[in-house]
């Protein structure tokens, strides 16, 4: 047994010294390979060394295993030998001396009683030492403070039923409203009358105005009498919920998920802001994302449901693509870096739990365009664009349905959709019309036309049944015919700049300048201006239109514009 033991001790010691994981020899070879990645003989040497180390390791394991069985067998024989030894050397009982125990009993009990006390003291002292040395650095009071969001009785949360298709239309669930198209579904909303005149200075037709604590160029979204938006600075990120009726700030929640230590701070241009991505709602939850990759979900009462950090996206202006919800899943476009960096992806998360439902990698560069969800005869399509692809995906699986190549530039304008065509703007270059009924690569088969008339760089296009309207930052508004891509008309708003995307309300198109001036024109084959209004505060975000009210985010305030019925 001793011989077996010595062999096993040696094998055990060698097992660690020569294992493939910690082998210095292998480590040195790998380090050489980093410097000479194409050195094929070196690779072969690594393979052979690795194999040799593994074989040695396994051989030693087998030796140890055999040794263990030998020791067990030896142990059993040893015990039997000891038993036999004891049997052969049994001693005679001497009951007379044993009887002395009876005499000693009271003394034994006295000692035992005190020994129990001593043992109790020893347990006590050991316990005190444990308390002193091992108490948690995180006190219950700290835990209580840290978990305050979840100490509120969840029962107070109003239970929301799963929203039906109509509710997705009567509300304004994401950037540019239902589907992200910038078109107000008037009929579904019950044909409310939207205001055509207001004045921020005199508060004419301004139902309320509420201060927004932190700035950002994201747009308001509306659901069930609540208006949601986000705000951020370099160091703070927040989500806000206002009462749509009176503008009261119902709740304000910080977004501060766990992040990897040493997370890189995002590069954010002032023109992008630290809260450029519009939040999304699904009737029960609101979701927000920020340029550092913070992503969070809250219920309508402001309880944080989950929060995570996706890692700072590689984006030199700052991440700005907005979120969009599809049923109970949240869809996050996360295009970043350049198309050969393998960093971009499109992902869907379970709205309630935050677990990833699907993730589709994309060979695309950073993009600032937001996704849209469109209805086609074949079903819903999630359309996303980023250099070099305009692509459609199945929103429930992330499977790519079709793609159109040749999309170039720093893509700010989001795509839009009408009459079976997806319209994509190549900034300062052209407007593409791509039929949405294709599959795989449709670049050469489904591109209907390309128009070079007035392609914007930031503002998203708008489409009615017959025309696509484009608005450049410096005020050139063009209408292009859907049927053939020909320019119908153009109009230049002198001395006005635009960042907010246009919205179609029935036959009216609402345009907001960066100084807060609004133009209302008629959608048609001629440029017809019907109204001009002034909010009195700069506007960079696209407004939300719900129930006859326009919710506009100014630089400092959230406005609700409503025109009383005559």
């Amino acid at each position, binding site marked *: *047994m*001793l011989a*077996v*033991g010595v062999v*096993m001790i040696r094998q*055990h010691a060698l097992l660690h010294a020569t294992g493939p*994981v910690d082998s210095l020899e292998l480590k040195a070879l790998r380090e050489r390979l980093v410097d000479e990645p194409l050195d094929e003989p070196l690779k072969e040497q690594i*393979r052979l060394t*690795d194999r040799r180390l593994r074989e040695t*390791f396994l051989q030693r*394991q087998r030796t*140890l295993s055999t*040794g263990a069985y030998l*020791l*067990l067998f*030896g*142990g059993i024989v*040893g*015990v039997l030998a*000891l038993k036999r*030894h*004891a*049997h052969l050397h*049994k*001693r*005679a*009982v*001497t*009951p007379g001396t044993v009887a002395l125990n*009876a005499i000693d*009993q*009271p003394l*034994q*009990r006295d*000692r035992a009683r*005190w*020994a*129990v006390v001593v*043992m*109790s003291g020893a*347990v006590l002292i050991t*316990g*005190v030492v444990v*308390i002193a040395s091992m*108490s*948690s650095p*995180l006190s219950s009071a700290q*835990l209580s403070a840290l*978990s305050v*969001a979840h100490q509120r009785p969840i029962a107070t949360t109003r239970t929301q039923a799963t929203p039906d298709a109509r509710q997705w239309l009567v509300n304004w669930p994401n950037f540019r409203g239902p589907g992200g198209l910038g078109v107000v579904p008037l009929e579904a909303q019950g044909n409310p009358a939207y205001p055509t005149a207001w004045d921020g200075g005199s508060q004419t037709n301004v139902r309320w105005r509420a201060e927004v604590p932190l700035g950002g160029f994201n747009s308001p979204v509306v659901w069930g009498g609540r208006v949601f938006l986000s705000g951020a600075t370099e160091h703070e990120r927040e989500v806000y919920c206002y009462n749509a009726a009176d503008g009261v700030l119902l709740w304000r929640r910080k977004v501060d998920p*766990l*992040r990897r*230590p040493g997370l890189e701070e995002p590069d954010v241009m002032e023109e992008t802001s630290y809260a450029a991505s519009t939040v999304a709602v699904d009737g029960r939850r609101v979701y927000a994302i920020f340029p550092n990759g913070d*992503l969070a979900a809250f219920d309508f009462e402001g309880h944080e449901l*989950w*929060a*995570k*950090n996706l890692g700072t996206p590689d984006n030199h202006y700052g991440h700005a693509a907005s979120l969009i919800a599809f049923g109970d899943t949240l869809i996050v476009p996360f295009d970043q870096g350049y198309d050969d960096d393998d960093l971009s992806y499109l992902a869907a*998360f379970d709205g309630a*739990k935050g677990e990833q439902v699907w993730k589709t990698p994309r060979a695309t560069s950073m993009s600032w365009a937001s996704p849209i969800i469109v209805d086609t005869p074949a079903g819903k399509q999630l359309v996303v664009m980023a250099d070099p692809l305009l692509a459609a995906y199945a929103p429930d699986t992330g499977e790519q349905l079709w793609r159109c190549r040749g999309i170039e530039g720093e893509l700010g304008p989001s795509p839009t959709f009408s009459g079976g065509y997806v319209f994509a703007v190549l900034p300062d270059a052209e407007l593409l019309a791509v039929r949405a009924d294709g599959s795989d690569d449709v670049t050469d088969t489904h591109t209907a036309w390309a128009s070079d008339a007035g392609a914007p760089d930031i503002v998203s296009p708008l489409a009615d049944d017959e025309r696509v309207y484009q608005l450049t930052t410096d005020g050139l508004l063009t209408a292009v015919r859907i049927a053939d891509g020909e320019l119908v008309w153009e109009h230049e708003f002198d001395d006005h700049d635009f960042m907010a995307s246009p919205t179609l309300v029935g036959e009216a198109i609402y345009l907001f300048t960066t100084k807060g001036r609004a133009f209302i024109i008629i959608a048609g084959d001629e440029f017809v201006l019907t109204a001009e209004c002034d909010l009195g505060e700069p506007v960079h975000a696209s407004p939300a239109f719900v129930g006859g009210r326009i919710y506009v985010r100014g630089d400092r305030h959230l406005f609700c514009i409503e025109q009383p019925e005559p």
Partner: protein
Amino acid sequence: MSRKTPVISFFAGGLVLAAGRAAWAIERFPPPDFETGHQLPPTERTAGNPGWYDALDITVLFAALSVGAWLVLKARSRKGVVGLAIACLVYFGFWRNGCVCAIGSIQNVTLALFDSGYALPVVVGAFFLLPIAFTLLFGRVFCAGVCPLGAIQDLVSFRALRVPEWLEQPLRVLPYVYLALAVVLAATGSAFVICEYDPFVGIFRLSGGVAMIVFGVVLLAAGMFVVRPYCRYLCPYGVVLGWLSRASLLHARIDPTKCIKCRLCEDSCPVNAINLPDERVDVQANRRRLVLGLAVLPVFVLAGALLGYGLASPLSRMNTTVQLAERMHAEQAGAVEGVIKETEAFRATGASVTRLYADALAVRRRFAWLTPTAFALLGLMVGLKRVRLSVPAWRDEYEIEASRCVACARCFEYCPHDARNVALLQQLTAEQRDDPEVVALTVGGIDR
């Protein structure tokens, strides 16, 4: 070969077994981390035990307990008990790898009581209840030879030393401490410490952590001279069976009408379970001690509760939720550098950190009332033990203390009224039979 050689070889072999097998069991390494074109075969998962295994385990347990009861109470056969111990050691220990185990089942039952989301497996419930039922009927026949942990210790003992009462009594406090810890940690879903620190499971499986196997080998080495050290000074299930065996209907007894006070059983018992006649009871002194013992009882309870109150925080750190919350907080606060796999995985889930803290707080609150309660009860038990030592029961006959007796049947071999010994004694003259020393030599020396 000197007398010490086999002992040394056994110790050395055991320790080497521990080191070698432990390393063999826990060493793993990843597949190659560069492309070779080799297709790794799919990972094969072994199917769990078939359902009939549970039924077989329960059947074997029931049969072993029944046989044990018969061997102890009817056949009064030490050899039979040893045979049963070997069989159960092979089946429950080496064949079934020491799991499922009645000792560990305390934790499952506790968890099931405190966590409605935990379903107690039938086989575990049976392993918890069957030994208890047999103990209530027949005494600790489970400990005798059915429990593989008891069996392996019993089989290695060969030169039993008597542990003096002043040492035996305080050491028997330790199982209460272990039981309190195990219940608190199981009730909070934190850990199954009885399983984690099972000293013999590594030997049964011929694998395990080095510390675990070394602990087992050391206990076995101690068990050669101090019979069943784990059973007597650590086993938390033994605490439960000890309480219940006091009320057992048919446990092994000394028949006072036949006892000739030869004292052979007293010396043969390795676990100090034979109570001697004690006719020198000082009633006045007993009364004083009783009053004093009862008076200080609240002190023991209070000290236990305070200790439990203080231990709530350190013990809660054995809970993985609390551990994760602590680590998360430390990482967020920059108190530690880098991340660990657990926190990285948690971040990837997207679960809310405030919810994690809330969950950790909920765990901490459970510890906050469970630990003082358990330790207050521990204080009560220790206090009562002290009271009991202060006021010994008056007796004029030899008696088996049911709570200590592990039904090993050693004493039967030495009893002059054992059928086999009666036959030997009948060969003596009447004079010789009146001489205890001759009787002792006739029925055999001490050979444990």
